[in-house]
C-alpha cells in the first residue's frame, strides 16, 4: 500500500469537489482515475501532491501521514506529478528543464556555488547525469537543446514525464498525459508508462481515453460529482452500470 | 465644533479625490495590466488645463473642467497609442519604466509651459457654509457630491451598457474579446480616455482647495497605488472603498494618533492588510 486516502474531502465555497474519497494505490501498478468532466479528478491529484490542502480527511504515504505537508516536502518523499495543462519552464531548454528536477536530491547551497566547492562540482555533475538519463529514458536526447516552449505537444508531454522522473520518484501522478495527442503517439506514451512500471515506479493517471486505460490500468477508480462510484479492474468497470450511465455512455470506443 | 464629524467630513473629501484618481488607475490596470505611473501627470495636466482656460479666456469653471476632461482623456489615448500599445506584448516591468519616462516628460513639459511655481485656482464656490455644525466650503461639498455622481455614472456604464461590459470582458481575456468581435484597440483607447477624464475631474475638483504645480501629481499617485492594491488591482468597488478607507485613515489618524506619522500609519495599514490578504481586500470578481 503506497498511498492511502481516508475520507478525503475538498470544498470550494459551497461546491464539494472531492467528497469523502477512500482510495488506495498499490506499489508497482498502474492505477487510473476516470470520471466525467468536473468530477474532481484533478482536484484529487492536487490534494495528493499537496498543491491544495484538504478540507477534511487524511492522506498516508507508506503509512506516514502527509496530509499537512507542503508540495515540496511531498516531492522529496518520492511523489512526482504532471499537470493537466502541460506546465514546463517554457523559457529554458529541455535539458535545463530537467536538470533542476534533480535539485531536491542535492545539498549544495549558495555558499557552495559562490566558493565552487567540491560538493558543488560533484552535484552539478550528478544533476546533469540524471537529466541525461531520464531524457534518454523518455527518448528525447535529440531535442535537449531546444527551448521547451518550441517543441511539439507530444514532446512536451515527454519532457513533463522526464521532469517528474528526475526527482527520483516512487510514484508519479499523471494528469491526462495524452490529452491532445493523436492515437499513434498515445500508444508511444502508454509504452512509456509501462516502461516506468518496469522500473519499479508506480503510476497513477487520469485519462479520458478509454481504450488506452482499459488496456493499461491494473486498477481503476471512477469519480462522479466528487464521489467514488466504482473501483476495480478494467473489466469490472466496463460492465458497471453506474459507470456506464454516468460516464461511458453506449459506445466506449472513443 | 465637533472634531470627529469635522474630521470625518475632511476624510470623506480627501477620500473622494483619492477614489477618483484610483478609479482611473484601476481601470487601466484591469484592461492592460499596466500600473500607469504617468497617471499622476495626467492629474496634474487636468488641473493646469482647467486653470488655463479659466485664467486665459475666462471660461466658466464647469466648462473649463469639461474641456479639460476631453483634452486629458485624449492625451491618455495618445499615450496608449504611442507607448503602451507598442508595448502590449512586453513584460509588465517595461510598462512601468515607459510610464516613468512619460511622467518625467509631462512634468518637464508642464514646467516649460506654465513655469515651476504654485498657482491658485479660483472657484465660484468659495463660500463657507455650515453643515450640521461642521464647517465646509461649497467647493468641498461639491467634491463629495461630484465624486459620488461620477462613480455612480461609471458603475452604471460598466454594468449596464454593452460598451461598458466590453471593458470588463477585455480585462479578463484579451483574445477572448477578439473572438467575440470586440475591437480591443478601441476598448483600450476608451479606457484610457475614461481614465484620463477621471484624473481631470479629480484634479479640477480638488485644485481649488490645494494648489496647482508641476509636481502635484506626486501627492496623489503613490496613494492611488496603495488604494488599488488595497482594493485588489483592477477592482472598481475596491478602488472606491480603498480611496475612502485611506481618506478616513489619514484624517482620523492625524487627529487621534499622530499627525507626523499619519502617512506611516496609512502605509502600515496597507502592509498589514496585504500580509493577511495577499491579493487585496476585494478580488476581481466584484468588478
Amino acid at each position, binding site marked *: 500500500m503506497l498511498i492511502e486516502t481516508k475520507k478525503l474531502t475538498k470544498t*470550494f465555497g459551497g*461546491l464539494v469537489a472531492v467528497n469523502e474519497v477512500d482510495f488506495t494505490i498499490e506499489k508497482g501498478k498502474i492505477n487510473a482515475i*476516470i*470520471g*466525467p*468532466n*468536473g*468530477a474532481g479528478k484533478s482536484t484529487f491529484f492536487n490534494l495528493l501532491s499537496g498543491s491544495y490542502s484538504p478540507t477534511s480527511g487524511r492522506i498516508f504515504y507508506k503509512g506516514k501521514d502527509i496530509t499537512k505537508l507542503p508540495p515540496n516536502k511531498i516531492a522529496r518523499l518520492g511523489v512526482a506529478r504532471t499537470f*493537466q495543462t502541460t506546465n514546463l519552464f517554457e523559457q529554458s531548454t529541455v535539458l535545463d528543464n530537467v536538470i533542476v528536477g534533480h535539485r531536491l536530491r542535492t545539498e549544495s547551497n549558495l555558499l557552495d556555488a559562490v566558493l565552487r566547492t567540491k560538493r558543488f562540482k560533484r552535484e552539478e555533475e550528478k544533476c546533469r547525469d540524471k537529466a541525461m538519463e531520464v531524457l534518454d529514458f523518455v527518448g528525447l536526447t535529440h531535442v535537449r537543446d531546444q527551448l521547451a516552449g518550441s517543441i*511539439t*505537444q*507530444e514532446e512536451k508531454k515527454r519532457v513533463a514525464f522526464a521532469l517528474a522522473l528526475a526527482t527520483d520518484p516512487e510514484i508519479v501522478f499523471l494528469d*491526462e498525459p495524452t*490529452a*491532445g*495527442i*493523436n*492515437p*499513434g*503517439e*498515445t*500508444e508511444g506514451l502508454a509504452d512509456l508508462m509501462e516502461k516506468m512500471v518496469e522500473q519499479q515506479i508506480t503510476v497513477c493517471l487520469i485519462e*479520458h481515453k*478509454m*481504450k488506452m486505460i482499459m488496456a493499461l490500468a491494473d486498477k481503476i477508480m471512477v469519480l462522479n460529482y466528487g464521489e467514488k462510484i466504482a473501483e476495480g479492474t478494467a473489466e469490472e468497470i466496463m460492465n458497471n452500470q453506474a459507470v456506464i450511465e*454516468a*460516464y*461511458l*455512455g*453506449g*459506445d*466506449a*470506443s*472513443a | 465644533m465637533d472634531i470627529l464629524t469635522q474630521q470625518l467630513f475632511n476624510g470623506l473629501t480627501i477620500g473622494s479625490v483619492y477614489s477618483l484618481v484610483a478609479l482611473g488607475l484601476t481601470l487601466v490596470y484591469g484592461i492592460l495590466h499596466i500600473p500607469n505611473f504617468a497617471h499622476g501627470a495626467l492629474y496634474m495636466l487636468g488641473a493646469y488645463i482647467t486653470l488655463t482656460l479659466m485664467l486665459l479666456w475666462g471660461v466658466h469653471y464647469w466648462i473649463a473642467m469639461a474641456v479639460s476632461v476631453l483634452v486629458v482623456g485624449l492625451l491618455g489615448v495618445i499615450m496608449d497609442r504611442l507607448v503602451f500599445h507598442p508595448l502590449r506584448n512586453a513584460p509588465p516591468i517595461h510598462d512601468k519604466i515607459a510610464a516613468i519616462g512619460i511622467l518625467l516628460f509631462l512634468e518637464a513639459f508642464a514646467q516649460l509651459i506654465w513655469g515651476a511655481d504654485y498657482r491658485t485656482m479660483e472657484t465660484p464656490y468659495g463660500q463657507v457654509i455650515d453643515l450640521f455644525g461642521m464647517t465646509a466650503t461649497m467647493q468641498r461639498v461639491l467634491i463629495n457630491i461630484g465624486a459620488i455622481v461620477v462613480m455612480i455614472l461609471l458603475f452604471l456604464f460598466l454594468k449596464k451598457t*454593452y460598451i461598458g*461590459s*466590453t471593458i*470588463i*470582458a477585455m480585462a*479578463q*481575456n484579451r*483574445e*477572448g*474579446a*477578439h*473572438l*467575440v*468581435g*470586440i*475591437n*480591443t*484597440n478601441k476598448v483600450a483607447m476608451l479606457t484610457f480616455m475614461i481614465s484620463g477624464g477621471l484624473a481631470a475631474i479629480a484634479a479640477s475638483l480638488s485644485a481649488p482647495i490645494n494648489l496647482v504645480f508641476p509636481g502635484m501629481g506626486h501627492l496623489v499617485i503613490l496613494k492611488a497605488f496603495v488604494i488599488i492594491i488595497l482594493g485588489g488591482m483592477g477592482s472598481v468597488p475596491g478602488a472606491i472603498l480603498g480611496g475612502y478607507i485611506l481618506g478616513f485613515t489619514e484624517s482620523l489618524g492625524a487627529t487621534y494618533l499622530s499627525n507626523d506619522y499619519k502617512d506611516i500609519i496609512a502605509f502600515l495599514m496597507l502592509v498589514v492588510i496585504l500580509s493577511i490578504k495577499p491579493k487585496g481586500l476585494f478580488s*476581481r*470578481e466584484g*468588478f
Partner: protein
Amino acid sequence: MLELSRVSVDYGGFTAVEQVDITVEEGELVVLLGSNGAGKSTIFNAISGLQKTSSGIILFEETPIQGAAPDKIVQSGIVQCAEDRKLFPQMTVRENLIMGAYIHRRKRKQVNRSLEEVLELFPILHEKRENAAGSLSGGQQQMLAIGRALMSKPKLMLLDEPSIGLAPLIVEQMFEVIQKINQDGTTVLLAEQNAFAALKIANRGYVFESGSIVVQGSSEELLANDTVRRAYIGA
C-alpha cells in the same frame, strides 16, 4: 464560402503553415485532421485574424479577409471557438454568453432569444448560468465556449479541437451538438485529433502534416485511406 489559396504563416523565421489551399462550401462540415503541431490552430488563427498570414489569400464570401482585424472578421460572420477556450473567467456563464452576441448588441430581443436557445442546447450551462466561467470544469467550459460562439449567429464556425480533454460521454454529445449546429445551417470547419468521430459527422476532410496538406477527400475516402487509418484512428 471560405476559400484559402496558397496561405502561409510564419512564426519568426519558422514557417508553421505553408502554401495551404482549403475550400469550404456553404452548409458543409469540413474537418481538418493532423497531429500535434501540424498547424491546425495556426490556420484557424489566420482565418480569424489573430495571426497574420505571410502570403496567400483568404476569401470569405468572395471578399478577401486576410489581414483584417479580428473584430471585422467576426462581424463578417466567422467565429472561432479556440482551443484554449478564451472565456471571461470572472464573468458569469450568462454574461459570457451575452458577450458572445456583442456584434448583435443593438438587437436586444434577438440576443435574448439566442441566449435561451443556447441554454436549452446545453442544460448544464443553464444550471450554472450564474456561476463564474472560471469555476467550471474543463468540459463545462468547452460547452460554454461553443455556446458563446453560437451566440453571434455565425455563418461559419471554426471549432478547434472541441473534444480535447472531455469525457467519452461528453465527447459523444459534443459531436452530436456540432452535427446539430451544422444541420441548423451553420457551416462548420472543425479541427480534430479524434479523427474517427469527426469523420463520422463530416462531409469532407483535409489531413495536415508539418504545415501542409497531405491528403484530402470526402469522409468516406479518408476513412478508407490506409495511412489515415493508421496515423489517426489507431490500428
